[in-house]
């Protein structure tokens, strides 16, 4: 192989020598920084570009593979960016809605993020990143831009635990906004809340809005709870079963507000004494 190469070089030795010397001369020329060389450089670039263009139809496996790799990485990075932008957009929308809610409100709100969520048991709770240092106290309502979320049940200096509407221990005085029919919102599992203590004869229609009632000791009146999904008379009973679809999507809950609403303690004491 080497011998064959040597023979070829020997056969074309004049060309090998002249090519070597021309290349050396051209290299020396490139060391100059004169106007002539700059022009020649530009010609060389144009020439090389034309040549590359002329042979560009020949696919280069390694180039294609590298290009593929680069494109794949770029695709991944862009997908990631798109995902983050979508996330940001949704967060922006949520925050805007929260801000609107805050502007409308007559109560003070403490913005909070949910640090932990437990939505699998019958006593569903969330952990919030605000606590007594933020003037968050037990029994304060938790709301989102969509409606009532639950209430605070315990606090530490920096954290608090919120009891969700989807918790069988939470009961909320509520009413049908249209017909002013009163009832008690409870949850017994499943996707719907139940409006209890509604008489068979009360006017309840699917689509009716359910809000907190003025009879509630812990929640101010008028907070949206949900929408009536269906109402059926209970067999052998004077009441009807009203299923309410919660206004809040608890699975997507992230940013919330703690409403700094303090129940009237004297009223609570009085009510408890007469029960």
């Amino acid at each position: 192989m080497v011998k064959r190469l040597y023979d070829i070089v020997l056969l074309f030795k004049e060309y090998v020598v002249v090519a070597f010397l021309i290349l050396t001369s051209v290299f020396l020329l490139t060391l100059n920084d004169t106007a002539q060389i700059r022009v020649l450089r530009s010609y060389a670039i144009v020439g090389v570009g034309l040549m590359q263009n002329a042979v560009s139809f020949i696919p280069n496996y390694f180039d294609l593979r590298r290009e593929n790799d680069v494109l794949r990485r770029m695709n991944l990075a862009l997908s990631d960016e798109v995902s983050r932008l979508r996330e940001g957009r949704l967060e922006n929308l949520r925050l805007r809605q929260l801000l609107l809610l805050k502007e409308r409100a007559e109560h003070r709100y403490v913005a909070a993020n949910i640090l932990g969520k437990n939505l699998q048991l019958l006593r569903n709770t969330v952990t919030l990143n605000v606590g007594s240092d933020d003037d968050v106290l037990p029994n304060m309502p938790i709301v989102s831009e969509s409606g009532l979320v639950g209430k605070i049940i315990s606090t530490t200096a920096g954290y608090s635990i919120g009891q969700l509407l989807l918790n069988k221990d939470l009961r909320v005085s509520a009413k049908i906004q249209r017909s002013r029919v009163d009832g008690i919102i409870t949850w017994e599992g499943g996707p719907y809340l139940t409006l209890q203590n509604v008489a068979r004869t009360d006017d309840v229609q699917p689509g009716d809005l359910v809000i907190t009632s003025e009879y509630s000791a812990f929640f101010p009146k008028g907070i949206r709870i949900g929408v009536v999904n269906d109402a059926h008379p209970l067999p052998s009973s004077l009441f009807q079963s009203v299923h309410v679809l919660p206004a809040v999507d608890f699975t997507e809950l992230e940013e919330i507000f703690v409403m700094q609403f303090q129940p009237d303690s004297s009223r609570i004491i009085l009510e408890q004494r007469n029960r």
Partner: protein
Amino acid sequence: MLTRRLLPDIILSALVLLLQTTVVEFLAVHTIVPDLVLIWIVVTALRRGQIPATAAGFSMGLVQDLVSGPDGMLGLSALTKTIAGFLAGYFYAENKTPQILGSYRLLLITGIVSLVHNALYFVLFLQGSGIRWTDGILSYGLPSTAYTVAVALIPMLIFARKQVSSP
């Protein structure tokens, strides 16, 4: 052995370079000067062949570039004289060297090689200068070629005389 054979050529090459860089200036006619180095390269090509002429062209051109200082372009003479030597080497005929050197063919070959050399030189040298290379060749290249061919008469006559005097 090789060095001993090459030594006279090397000394003569140095002498030609010395003449080109010192004496030739005094022979200038309206800034046009003969190219003694080129004549020597042609003579080398006709006496020694293509590779020695190419190597001589490169090395002598490089020396010219180095002594031309900041006004010159390093590598330009080396390039043009390398190509001149290579081109001149095509006229090498081992058995007819004395006849070619001592005849008008030396002038013809010198003329062709000088023309190519000057054309290449001015095409490169005048880039970006605003002077068209055709003007450069007409104003400097052709007169320089004519002057070089005229000076090449001297070696031609010397070789012709040697040829006559040798049995």
